């Protein structure tokens, strides 16, 4: 294979847009949680009481999904900038994806176990 520079993957817009949308979701969630916690007060019981509502669980779930997608785009950007060999980069991409999917699953388990 000739070592020519190849570009033109024709993706990027979707991820760029998703990164902005997920950032917005996380910002709104943070505001909502700050308000809710300032009303109920901190502490274990208050958190537990809050998470007993399925609505709060649901928005927390959405928040975690947003966080994972956002992190995926961001971390991948770092690998793309600094890791040049294709094989190593692909491995890192896969590991990042697996870790993030794992975290999402783990969070889901924690949320519905409460």
């Amino acid at each position: 294979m000739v070592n020519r520079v190849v570009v033109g993957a024709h993706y990027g817009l979707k991820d760029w847009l998703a990164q902005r949308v997920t950032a917005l979701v996380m910002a709104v969630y943070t505001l909502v949680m700050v308000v809710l916690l300032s009303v109920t007060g901190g502490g274990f019981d208050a958190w537990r009481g809050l998470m007993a509502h399925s609505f709060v669980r649901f928005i927390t779930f959405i928040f975690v999904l947003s966080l994972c997608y956002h992190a995926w785009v961001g971390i991948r950007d770092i690998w793309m900038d600094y890791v040049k060999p294709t094989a190593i980069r692909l491995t890192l991409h896969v590991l990042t994806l697996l870790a993030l999917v794992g975290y999402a699953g783990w969070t889901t388990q924690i949320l519905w176990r409460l």
Partner: protein
Amino acid sequence: MSNRTLQFKIYRYDPDKDQKPYMQEIAVEVESTDRKLLDAMVKLKAKDDSIAFRRSCREGVCGSDAMNINGRNGLACLTDLTTFPEGKPIVLRPLPGLPVIRDLIVDMTQFFKQYHSIKPYLINNDPPPETERLQSPEDREELNGLYECILCACCSTSCPSFWWNPDKFVGPAGLLAAYRFIADTRDQATSERLDNLEDPYRLFRCHTIMNCVEACPKGLNPTKAIGKIKDMMVRRAV
């Protein structure tokens, strides 16, 4: 203002003679009529003619004398000598991120390759009219702040994304030029131009840190143009 002596620290590297680059300290006396950094550098060159730098129009139109001045990219011919603090040497280095040919002269091949990759010319397959292709004043207005780019490379060489991927990321200067043709109502290749940029490297390496805006000696805003390209892609996609 009377005559005064300016201290310089200049990046020197001649690949034929030097093992590695070094900083040369040199002083030069300037007169009250010397207003710009380039004036002082011309005096410097008279004192030590081994110093190499590019210069041509000396009025901020050709973009030849772009360099790193006290850590910031700019044009020597537009930089006022009065802006330098007294008693501190003026540090001159070549534009960062590009291969050095000699002293302050860099190899701009990569930069111009990226510029050419966006097809910086009007694409219109209609037969040319008798006189000219007309635009409304409002449509023409959109090209202001885009066409003035002199391709000095101050912006692209201050962009970390361009430092890491100069072969794949178009860079602020190229993207500003790309939007200049995307925004032009006389151009017929808008969709192809957007296709050409819809790529994780070519356009989306820009993370909006705005070094380009700070560096531009012509006061242009590549970040804004890049934002408009992204807006158009979103409008096209949703």
